C-alpha cells in the first residue's frame, strides 16, 4: 500500500567565487608543490568566502538556484533546516535570517543545527521525521559552511583540505510502497571532540587578546586557540574504525547485501582517506564518488554536492539505491540509504 514517504527531490549547490588554488599554496609554502598537494588530497582548488560573506549568504545562493531550477517555489517550503558550524551570529538563529531572505512563509518552521561532516545525513533524518509524521510536506535542508574563517593562514594542514560551500536540498513527500529515505544509522563518540575543534570563541572559553596570538605548532604550522585545529592522524584512525562498522550496521538494517547498493556517496574528506575506506569496504571504483578537485572538503555540503554531481553525470538514475555516509567532527557519523525517486 502506498504511503507518503520522504524523498530527495532536488539539489542545488553554490561555491563562493573566491578561490584558493594549489599554486597559491605552493607559492606561500616554499617546500610544497601544487602537484604533490593534488596527489595527496585530491584537491586542486577551493572556494573561499569573502570576508563579509557568511554561511547564510552561501546557503541563500544555493537555495535561490534550487528555486530557479523550478524544483519548488519559496512559498511551498514548510520547514527550513539549516546546518552550519559557522553561523552568522550566536543569536538569532541563522535559519530565521534565511527564512526572511528567501521569502519563505511566516508559518514555515526554521531551525539551525550544529553538525559538521555528518550534518547532511542527520538533516535527511530530521526531514524524514517531519514529513512522515505529517508536520511538513516540503523541507528545505541547507548545509552551508565557511571553515576558512576559522583557519590560520599559516596552518597548511587544514588550509589545503577545507573549502567553503553550500547546498540546498529539497526533501518532500512522495506516494510510494517502499521507503525512499532510510534506513538510517547514527553514531557519536564525544571522546574525540578535541581532535577537530575551534577551542576559543564559545562560552567555555571566551576570546581574550592572548587567544588571538598564533604560535608555531606541530609540523611547522601556526595557529592560535581561536583557529581550527585538526589532528589528521587521529581523525583517520577514527574514520577507518567507525565508518566500516556504520556501513555494516546500515546494511543489516536494510536487510540487503552491499552489492545491492547502486552507488556510494561518502563525505568527501580527502582523497587519501576515501581511497582507504573504499578499499577496506571492497567497493568498486566505478560505484564510488570521489570528486573534491574543484571544491575541497566543504564539510556538511560535500555529500549533496556529490549527489548533484553524480546525478548530472548519470552515475545515479531514478530508482538507484545510494548509500550516503557522513563522518567527522564530534566525533559524529551517520549513514543512510537514499532511493532516488
Amino acid at each position: 500500500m502506498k504511503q507518503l514517504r520522504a524523498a530527495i527531490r532536488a539539489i542545488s549547490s553554490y561555491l563562493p567565487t573566491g578561490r584558493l588554488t594549489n599554486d597559491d599554496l605552493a607559492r606561500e609554502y616554499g617546500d610544497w608543490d601544487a602537484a604533490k598537494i593534488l596527489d595527496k588530497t585530491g584537491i586542486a582548488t577551493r572556494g573561499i568566502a569573502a570576508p563579509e560573506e557568511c554561511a547564510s549568504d552561501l546557503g541563500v545562493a544555493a537555495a535561490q538556484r534550487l528555486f530557479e531550477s523550478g524544483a519548488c517555489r519559496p512559498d511551498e517550503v514548510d520547514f527550513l533546516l539549516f546546518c552550519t558550524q559557522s553561523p552568522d551570529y550566536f543569536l538569532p538563529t541563522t535559519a530565521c535570517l534565511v527564512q526572511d531572505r528567501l521569502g519563505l512563509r511566516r508559518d514555515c518552521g526554521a531551525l539551525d543545527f550544529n553538525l559538521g561532516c555528518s550534518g547532511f545525513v542527520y538533516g535527511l533524518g530530521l526531514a524524514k521525521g517531519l514529513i512522515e509524521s505529517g508536520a511538513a510536506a516540503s523541507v528545505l535542508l541547507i548545509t552551508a559552511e565557511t571553515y576558512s574563517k576559522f583557519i590560520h593562514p599559516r596552518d597548511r594542514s587544514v588550509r589545503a583540505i577545507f573549502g567553503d560551500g553550500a547546498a540546498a536540498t529539497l526533501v518532500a513527500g512522495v506516494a510510494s510502497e517502499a521507503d525512499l529515505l532510510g534506513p538510517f544509522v547514527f553514531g557519536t563518540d564525544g571522546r574525540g571532540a578535541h581532535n577537530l575543534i575551534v577551542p576559543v570563541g564559545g562560552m567555555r572559553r571566551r576570546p581574550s587578546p592572548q587567544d588571538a596570538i598564533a604560535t608555531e605548532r606541530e609540523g611547522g604550522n601556526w595557529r592560535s586557540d581561536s583557529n581550527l585545529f585538526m589532528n589528521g592522524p587521529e581523525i583517520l584512525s577514527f574514520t577507518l574504525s567507525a565508518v566500516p562498522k556504520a556501513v555494516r550496521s546500515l546494511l543489516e538494517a536494510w536487510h540487503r547485501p552491499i552489492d545491492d547498493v547502486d552507488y556510494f556517496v561518502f563525505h568527501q574528506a580527502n582523497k587519501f582517506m576515501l581511497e582507504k575506506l573504499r578499499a577496506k569496504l571492497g567497493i568498486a571504483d566505478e560505484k564510488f564518488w570521489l570528486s573534491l578537485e574543484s571544491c575541497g572538503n566543504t564539510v556538511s555540503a560535500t555529500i549533496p554536492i556529490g549527489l548533484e554531481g553524480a546525478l548530472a553525470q548519470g552515475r545515479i538514475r531514478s530508482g538507484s539505491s545510494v548509500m550516503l555516509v557522513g563522518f567527522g567532527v564530534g566525533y559524529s557519523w551517520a549513514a543512510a540509504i537514499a532511493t532516488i525517486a
Partner: protein
Amino acid sequence: MDRTAFLTKLTDALGLDNPGLSETSPLGEGIWDSFALLGAIALVDQELGLAVTAAELQGCATAGDLLTLLEQRKASESAGS
C-alpha cells in the same frame, strides 16, 4: 606477522627511499610528518586490522619497537576475542 615484509610495506607507506627501514632504523621526529603518520595508520589498519594512534607510533624509538608493539597489540586482541 612477517616482520621483514611489513617493514618493506612501511618503507613504501612512509615514502622513504632505499635501502628502507630495518629493525634498528630510528623512528625519530624526522620520520613522522603528517603524511607519514597517515600512511602508517592506514597501513596498520589494512594489514593487521588494528587502530593505532599517532602517539603510539611516535613513541617507538626504532622500527623494531613498532613491529613489537603491533605484535603485542595483535596478540592482545586475539586473546580478547
